[in-house]
């Protein structure tokens, strides 16, 4: 009962639900359906499934990041972040490495946010980026508190970058790559 029959008539082992749910959460929605299906088809035992998922999912995410990254938008976002953090740090004495960490974290958050977005350039992605900046500060606080950016500077920089990035993304909403991704989304719903 509850076991699927494979191509050759052989009884297929069911993948444990918790394992499949975790893998499903880690795979970007745009490729979730077929990647989970492929992992399911290759399933032999939980250990093999975990190993397969570990070797497959990071590459799927990287490929999704590559596909959803618009180089023009990336450049404009980098400039917006540079301006936001520069303005915020104007009166502070935070060094370059200290400021570079949250700025790079915002960029990483934006890329991941785009890769995992249900629809192209979700309005929530800049918020994910800023959340990554605060997450990076938590990691810095644990690893090397000397590089921590003061809270007022972080607040100013996060607010300014949220505003500038939102404007930049709205201006680039209808890019050629956006059209390309929208076509692919129609394919997925088929």
């Amino acid at each position: 009962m509850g076991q699927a029959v494979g191509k050759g008539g052989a009884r297929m082992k069911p993948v444990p639900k918790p394992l499949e749910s975790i893998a499903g959460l880690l795979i970007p929605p745009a490729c979730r359906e077929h990647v989970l299906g492929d992992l399911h088809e290759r399933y032999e035992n939980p250990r093999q499934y975990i190993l397969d998922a570990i070797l497959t999912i990071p590459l799927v995410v990287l490929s999704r990041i590559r596909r959803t990254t618009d180089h023009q938008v990336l450049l404009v976002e980098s400039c917006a972040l540079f301006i936001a953090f520069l303005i915020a740090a104007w009166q502070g004495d935070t060094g370059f490495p200290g400021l570079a960490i949250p700025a790079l974290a915002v960029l990483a958050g934006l890329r991941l946010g785009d890769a995992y977005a249900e629809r192209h350039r979700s309005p929530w992605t800049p918020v994910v980026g800023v959340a990554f900046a605060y997450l990076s500060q938590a990691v810095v606080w644990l690893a090397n508190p000397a590089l921590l950016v003061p809270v007022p500077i972080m607040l100013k920089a996060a607010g300014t970058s949220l505003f500038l990035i939102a404007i930049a993304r709205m201006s680039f909403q209808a890019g050629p790559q956006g059209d390309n991704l929208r076509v692919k989304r129609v394919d997925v719903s088929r």
Partner: protein
Amino acid sequence: MAKPDSLGQFEQLVLTAILSLRDDAYGVTIHAKVEELAHPKAASLGAIYVTLDRLEDKRLVASWLSDPTPERGGRAKRCYRLEALGERALQESAITAKRIWDHVAEVWGKELAKEWGRRWGKAVRG
């Protein structure tokens, strides 16, 4: 028609796998075919997805979702087929490979080339 970019070796393997699998080309079968073609080198399923995405962006292959099947836990397959540009790129790669092979055979001798051919054939079958 646009001129296709030159292909990397892994891209050639993936395109050859799609060509030989015809209507049954999707992640798992493409991976199995690529491992067979690249023997004894191994290829990960993730590397296959990355290459398929890149080939799709270059418009060398096209993909669509099939109907869900029970052996996949009720999930659909993403099937692939070669586009005209992909067929042309693969053809050019095959012609180049043949030209290399002919020159190797000419310089190193036909007997040695035959011996290599036999050895590689065994490796692919084994």
